[in-house]
């Protein structure tokens, strides 16, 4: 946990620098001929979507570690990444909806990617609720870890949904070899890459802060019980 304390400030600073740089670039890039001003949402939407998926991946890995090694650190990491991931998932859904209105003429459509992303949000919620519904925190942590691992089947579904099904949603455009859909051209690509890095740093920063918070709260609870059972 010490390492978290050390990296918190530097990541915070780096996050701000890249964020500001990215945003500056975004407002100095010509509007897309086809999409108009609305394209700027891309710079929030795409990075938050990636970070949502990344966070769930972190939760899964941390859950496996928690079960395997009985590591409490892994459990704290899983809990922290769950809140962060839920926030990014909500952000993806919100930004996607806002973007969808001008692009598709509707806030929402039940296409595979959108639906599976909604399922991811419900899953995150389930993880958060389950942990606190079981009164024994040890059991809560273990049940949550198992649920997270089972829920991980949703990740490939989200990612490959645009390939497996004919969807309204944009197929992958950053990956090499894709030739369908709109390609994100050079001048648009640079700020997107910078912002993706910025969001990655932001995720790291938020997870760090959250993890330290959780750790502190658990330690406080421990002190509380210790106080209660002192002297006996």
């Amino acid at each position, binding site marked *: 946990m010490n390492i978290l304390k050390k990296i918190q400030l530097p990541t915070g600073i780096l996050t701000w620098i890249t964020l500001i740089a990215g945003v500056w670039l975004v407002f100095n890039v010509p509007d897309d001929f086809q999409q108009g001003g609305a394209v700027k949402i891309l710079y929030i939407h795409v990075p938050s979507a990636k970070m949502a998926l990344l966070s769930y991946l972190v939760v899964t890995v941390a859950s496996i570690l928690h079960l395997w090694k009985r590591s409490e650190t892994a459990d704290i990491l899983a809990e922290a990444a769950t809140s962060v991931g839920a926030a990014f998932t909500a952000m993806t859904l919100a930004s996607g909806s806002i973007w969808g209105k001008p692009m598709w003429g509707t806030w929402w459509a039940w296409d595979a990617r959108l639906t599976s992303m909604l399922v991811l949000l419900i899953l995150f919620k389930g993880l958060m609720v389950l942990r606190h519904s079981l*009164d024994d925190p040890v059991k809560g942590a273990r049940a949550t870890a198992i649920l997270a691992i089972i829920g991980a089947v949703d990740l490939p579904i989200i990612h490959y949904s645009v390939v497996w099904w004919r969807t309204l949603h944009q197929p992958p455009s950053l990956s090499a070899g894709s030739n369908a859909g709109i390609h994100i051209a050079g001048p648009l690509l640079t700020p997107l890459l910078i912002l993706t890095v910025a969001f990655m740093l932001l995720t790291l920063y938020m997870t760090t802060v959250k993890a330290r918070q959780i750790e502190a709260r658990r330690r406080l609870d421990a002190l*509380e019980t210790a106080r*209660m*059972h002192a002297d*006996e």
Partner: protein
Amino acid sequence: MTPHPPSSDPSPVVVLENAQHRYGRHQVLQGIDLTVSPGECAVLYGANGSGKSTLLALLSTRYTLREGRYLLDGIDVRQEPHEARARLLFIGHHTHLYGHLTPLENLQFFTSLRTIPTTDQQLRHVINTVGLNKAVDKPVQWFSAGMRKRLALARLLLAHPKLLLLDEPYSALDTQGVGWLNAMLTTFLHNGGSLIMASHDPERVAALPHRPWQLARGRLHPISNAQESEAC
């Protein structure tokens, strides 16, 4: 083992006449007569399954009396069960506690439902008295058997019933708990309360002035203190 003088108090707290109870077709109690005066303690002995808990359930109004007469403090319980309930307190095999609430919250709920005016400080004091001060903020579901029993019995210090009904109050209590309970009950009787309890433990009851009864084959008989140890 102070034998209680046969009392002929003019206004008994409990008058039960010709009471009976059936579970389906199984007649558990028949022709039960029981009179208890203020300050008197009646102890019910009887083999397992003889109907002690059933009799207490009848007295507590938990089961409705189908035949016979039951006067509590002059009130006809069959007519006004509601009035009767305000005058009695029953602590049975079960503790009537909410597992997800702390001792303090459990007692708060208890007093507020019965509109007993108390302050949190008083409640804390009561919790201290029964030796649960260290667990005052711990949800009750994590209590040991004896701790639950102690908390259940703590209600005795809050409600001031005319009639107290206890089902095996000594079970699960340690020596200190038994001493504390007997002290509390002595005060209660001294202040004119009436007590009816079921027990298998004549050694522990011995510290209280009491009148023993035996339940057998559905009928209730007074017995002498000398017969106690065989009756239970």
